[in-house]
């Protein structure tokens, strides 16, 4: 028996899954002031009358980290940056407590300028004087050689509550994103760790031996204790749950579009051969571009309750929501009102919907029905256009080899999965516009909780071997070791696989669910003068987002 809980912005859903079937679902309102209380309520409710001994695992997806960032419920962070030449400090500075110091690692991972001990000590004094408890340390190219970051840490670790390191956030290059990711990690560290402690205390009262997982932005799970080290990985857990839920309920194996139409926004995601796509560099939150692995999605301000504008007879929808639909007493006409007028749904007060749409009709000069149709069409088209743009963006992604230019796979979805409130009335038309077969999966109302419940553990590892310098680096694990000049790509691949499995097990993966994918496999001859002096081996492996098990197909129509 698996318990999945999605603590969303409005509702909190829980689902119990047993023998490939949805056994029970519960939906309650989320109390944003007391997420832990909401979590307790829903867990108590769904587990009542259940045999706790059958509970194998609990998976939680939560807006905890996202909310902390969005609502500014974060700690002051001191940032220590070794930026070296390149972008100026004015662009890299992330807050008032950002300090720059000398020391530089180049793209090969060579330390070309040392850290200045006096500088570090001065910065430490200024940060402690300002009452800072949480510090982020980020060096340019620290993923190539973390030594500079760890040297700084050694000098100051006793003076602060917690230090976040840039090189542990991701193996990917991108200094400004590394700064933002490390900053956010440090900023929510305390809030998140407090939350984890409370959740674990509560679970202890139910069944302390049951493993508890949290869903990360990349649609994969991590054992909650492990996640506490890198809280930034748990941002955007909610949207990830929704995508994983659709994946699960749709039994998708092919290229497909997944859209979640809510009241305020519509979120779009894509599957390639049934695998959800990841953001190429990392997710963006509150304007911060990060290195946090996350499912690729696009959000637009068109939902059932979006305000309809009709200045000069031109109809447009959104992006803002100002209260509910007119049919529910809202101040402005909305797509929901149009769908009620058209008889596509029979919720709310039809007369109030008509009255709202009539105001639009006065401006356009068309009949109420035609106007409603136009509003509905505008909303559907706007969603369809965004889907098309997202597919184009992905298919036009720059590639760097001739092979990929000539052979590159293109995503060509034939299926559209729709969940969310207005899914039923809108799915068919959006499908038509996209030339896709439209489906609404069963249990769509608790898709997020199901997605969380059945997601597998995901992780990634980056291996760099430089046989000229005789070094091997796996930065996510903080590994740096000497290798022989004869070190080969094959040896690298083996180490990469072993370390990935080790890492996944540590995060709570079951051995049988680990499926390794090699993301990057490149070997470059390094030539100096006219002689080959070594090889530059670059490997990256991941456990991609997927499901530990399926819901049996028989449970859906």
């Amino acid at each position, binding site marked *: 028996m698996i318990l999945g809980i999605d603590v969303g912005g409005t509702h909190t859903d829980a689902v119990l899954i047993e023998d490939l079937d949805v056994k029970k679902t519960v939906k309650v309102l989320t109390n944003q002031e007391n997420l832990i209380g909401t979590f307790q309520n829903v867990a108590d409710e769904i587990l009542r009358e259940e045999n706790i001994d059958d509970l194998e695992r609990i998976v939680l997806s939560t807006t905890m980290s996202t909310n902390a960032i969005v609502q500014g419920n974060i700690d002051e962070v001191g940032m220590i940056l070794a930026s070296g030449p390149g972008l100026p400090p004015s662009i890299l500075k992330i807050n008032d407590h950002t300090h720059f110091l000398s020391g530089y690692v180049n793209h090969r991972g060579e330390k070309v300028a040392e850290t200045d001990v006096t500088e570090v000590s001065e910065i430490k004094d200024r940060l402690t004087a300002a009452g800072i408890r949480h510090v982020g340390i980020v060096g340019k190219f620290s993923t190539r050689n973390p030594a500079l970051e760890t040297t700084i840490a050694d000098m100051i670790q006793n003076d602060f509550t917690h230090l976040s390191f840039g090189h542990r956030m991701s193996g990917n*290059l*991108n*200094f400004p994103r590394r700064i933002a990711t490390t900053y956010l990690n440090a900023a929510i560290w305390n809030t998140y760790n407090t939350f984890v402690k409370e959740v674990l205390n509560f679970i202890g009262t139910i069944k302390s031996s049951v493993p508890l997982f949290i869903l990360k932005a990349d649609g994969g799970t991590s054992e909650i204790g492990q996640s506490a080290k890198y809280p930034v990985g748990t941002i955007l857990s909610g949207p990830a749950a929704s995508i994983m839920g659709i994946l699960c309920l749709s039994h998708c194996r092919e290229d497909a579009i997944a859209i979640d139409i809510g009241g305020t926004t519509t979120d779009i995601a894509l599957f390639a051969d049934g695998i959800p796509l990841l953001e190429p560099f990392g997710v963006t939150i509150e304007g911060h571009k990060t290195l946090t692995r996350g499912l690729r999605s696009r959000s637009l301000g068109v939902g059932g309750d979006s305000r309809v504008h009709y200045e000069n007879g031109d109809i447009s929808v959104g992006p803002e929501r100002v209260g509910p639909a007119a049919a529910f007493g809202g101040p402005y006409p909305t797509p929901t009102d149009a769908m009620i007028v058209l008889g596509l749904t029979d919720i709310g007060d039809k007369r109030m919907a008509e009255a709202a749409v009539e105001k639009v009709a006065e401006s356009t000069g068309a009949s109420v029905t035609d106007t409603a149709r136009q509003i509905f069409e505008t909303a559907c088209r706007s969603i369809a256009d965004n889907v098309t743009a997202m597919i184009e963006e992905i298919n036009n992604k720059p590639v760097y080899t001739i092979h990929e230019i000539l052979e590159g796979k293109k995503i060509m979805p034939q299926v559209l999965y729709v969940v969310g409130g207005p899914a039923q009335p809108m799915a068919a038309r959006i499908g038509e516009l996209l030339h896709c077969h439209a489906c609404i999966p069963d249990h769509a109302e608790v898709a997020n909780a199901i997605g969380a419940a059945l997601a597998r553990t995901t992780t990634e590892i980056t291996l760099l071997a430089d046989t000229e310098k005789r070094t091997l680096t796996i930065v996510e694990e903080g590994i740096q070791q000497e290798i022989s000049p004869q070190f080969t790509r094959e040896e690298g691949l083996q180490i990469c696989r072993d370390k990935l499995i080790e890492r996944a097990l540590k995060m709570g993966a079951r051995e049988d669910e680990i499926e390794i994918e090699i993301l990057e496999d490149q070997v470059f001859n390094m030539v100096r003068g006219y002689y080959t002096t070594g090889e530059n081996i670059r490997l990256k492996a991941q456990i991609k987002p997927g499901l530990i098990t399926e819901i049996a197909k028989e449970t859906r129509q």
Partner: protein
Amino acid sequence: MKEKYRKTGLIFFPAFDWAISPTHPEREERLLYTQDQVFEEGLLDFDNIIEYKPGMATVDDINRIHICVPDAESVTTESHLISAGGAITAAEKVLDGEVDNAFALVRPPGHHAMTVVHGARGFCNINIEAIMIEHIRSKYGPKKVAIVDTDCHHGDGTQDIYWHDPNTLYISIHQDGRTLYPGSGFPNEFGGPNAIGTTINIPLPPRTSEEGFLYVLDHLIMPILEEFEPDLIINSAGQDNHYTDPITDMRFTAQGYAILNDRLSPDVAVLEGGYSVETALPYINVGIILAMAGIDYSQVTEPDYDPSSIRQSSEVTSYIEKEVDLIHSLWKNRNAEKAKVDRDTEFATRQKNIYYDTDGIQEEQKETVRLCNECGGLVFIDSRANYADRIFAVIVPGQSCPICRKKGEDLFESTDKKPYRHVYFQDRDRDIFLVK
């Protein structure tokens, strides 16, 4: 520095699966560290830096400007088509108004490829800038174009292609040909009889540093550009003037390249040479991208940058000052020089011996131009490679006058194929390419 926010297109194509040979400077690794640096600096996250996938140039694009022997397919691989296609994409994004300027960071390079192509020379098979420019002219109509070639080697291919074209100004700044491949590019190479002054060569002495390059830019190149009034400025952005380049002997820097690009403000920059893959290219390219996008590049330097250790000598400074004066007066007198051309004869001829170092081919060429006051002039070329493969080509220039076109058509018609492997006809305005 003053911020000048611009929308910049970036076409990055490092061709990680293509090399001339495993240890050749033009190999897979060449843009690897540039990619690292560009990614690490997070340049692709700037809202005003937009990355585009390169298109592929077509055989028609090549046949618009080159005479390939025996044909375009035989002298190119996909890598050349993507490299030229990347340059075309860059220019199209600018002309379509999607971006203010664009940088094609592509390989392999092209500025040693001449009109006739028997094979590869100076690591180049086809001239990616020329293919781009003629594609643009064919798609968007006639354009006055200035090419400023800042590669350390003289761009003898681009010079050859535009030698007779008064509407294309080719300015090359390079290490003195007496000390470096390809050995040409002296101030007296000043354009064909119909295009005197639209080829400008500025050879610089070895060990010229930032000061010298920027002096030439400010006192010679910018004033010439101001007078020429081009519709488009193209920068052949070779990066081998760098003080760490293994095959040249100059002392230019990443900071210098960025300043040069900023002051020149090209519409399109196209990567050419540059083989200091680890210690120069990453920093130069970051500098150029930031300069094009109008983002503060003042902190972009090599980690070991020390201007005092690479300062040019006072001899170099005074040599350059004198040369700038000389070339500037040549430019000022170009119309008088053009008036002196003997118009009594109809044709002017030049003999060329061209060596293809990369492919080891020797070409003998006789190129004839019709002296014409109305256009660039009809050109016909008799070329023989390795004493065997002989071709004849008739080229009607862009914006051609009716007489040159008529004469070209007649000449192609009347030329007997027998002594030649092929006879070619190229009409750039009408986009016609015929082979017999």
